[in-house]
């Protein structure tokens, strides 16, 4: 779901990096956020709501609304829409309010 041709913008070829989402390997670019890389790979559901367990995706994409929170490298409540993607990141759907992994 990447834009290939655009009349105004140029999206240059960048270095591909890999990360895992719920245990599976995915690819994105260094210019991505976690959420944009997942979305480009067809993943829209990022987590579930705390009580009703309804699917959650991002909403504002600029770090305001908290709808995109996920567990990243063991840290809960990471705003994935503004967090730059890094090689080797371990990204997981967050269950409930999020408990930090033991470090």
């Amino acid at each position, binding site marked *: 779901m990447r834009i290939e041709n655009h009349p105004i913008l140029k999206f240059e070829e960048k270095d591909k990096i890999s990360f895992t989402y719920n245990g599976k390997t995915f690819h994105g670019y260094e210019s991505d956020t976690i959420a944009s890389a997942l979305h480009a790979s067809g993943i829209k559901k990022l987590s579930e709501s705390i009580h009703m367990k309804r699917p959650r995706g991002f909403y504002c994409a600029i770090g*305001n609304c908290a709808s995109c929170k996920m567990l990243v490298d063991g840290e809960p409540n990471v705003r994935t829409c503004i967090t730059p993607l890094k090689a080797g990141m371990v990204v997981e759907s967050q269950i409930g309010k999020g408990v930090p992994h033991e470090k």
Partner: protein
Amino acid sequence: MRSKDAVVIGAGPAGLRAAKSLLEAGASVCLIDRNRKLGGQLIKQTHMFFGSEKQYASKRGIDILEILVDELRPFGDRLEVLNETSVVGLYRDKVLACVRHDRYFKIKARTIIVATGASEKSLPFENNDLPGVYAAGAVQTLMNEYGVKPGDRVLMVGSGNIGLIVSYQLLQAGVKVVALVEAAREISGYLVHASKIKRLGIDIMTQTSIKKAIGKEAVESVEIWSLNDLWEGVPGTEKTLAVDTVCISVGLAPLTELLMQIGADVKYVRELGGNVPVIDYRYQTSVPGLYACGDVCGIEEASSAMVEGSITGINAAIDMGYTFPDSRRKIKDLRDELKFLRSGPHAGKIRTGYAKLGVLS
């Protein structure tokens, strides 16, 4: 604790220009933004601006961003830029609590300028929380900043300028806009934008809204329906559209949380988008030494945010005892500029809003 003359929160058009005025007057400035790149929402604005020649009309937002950031380069060490930094606390003694890359620290300022901008509103309808229901600006970010399509088929909700412009930008990215629905009787954005997307085949349906989104883990289709003169949905008029994305473009609300936290007076002014700080004509809030400018004072657009930022920066510098060359004439020119930007028929809300607040034009 590091100490600065001025801390500017938010590096969008208002914050960048406020920082420039302060630096020109000789102040030391810390410019804070939570994003990696400076420029606020200009970063995704690939369209050409209207407004005035002086505020770069007919230039694209993404190019204006470069100009505003470049303007700050000559000031060297007097400017400290903290990107990827969130201000989490604002205190009466002008201490800011910040978090950057998991590190918590504090900054002491003589003057604080809040230029935090605004956030997009949501809309109540069944399943409005399904993934695939996105703010229109979010889709603009996804496409224009990261080069990712939101989906293949989109329903746009709202015909303000953001709805119209993002519809066009979806087409530019190769995404189909199935329809644009508007609850009011009239298209609310500029007719020139509306005509452009109509010519390209997008169906604009007024007095129509979304009834519900349908899907298991993400949007698979939507139901839209007609509204009567009381803005109520009319049973029997439902239509199902196969879309995988719903863009919500129903306005923005100022991000006043920090201003409320420090105890600055805020007032609900519908025309300005919600709760806004009570400012005087010099953009000072009820807390001495605390200023606010740009969309956090009322939803407008980037051109006027730039002008407000310049005015606020000059005033804040003068209040700290700095001199700004030819400041009276400069401020008068800037005020005239604002008046011009707010003179059109589409600026009626802004004029009413500021009148209710008892300030400015």
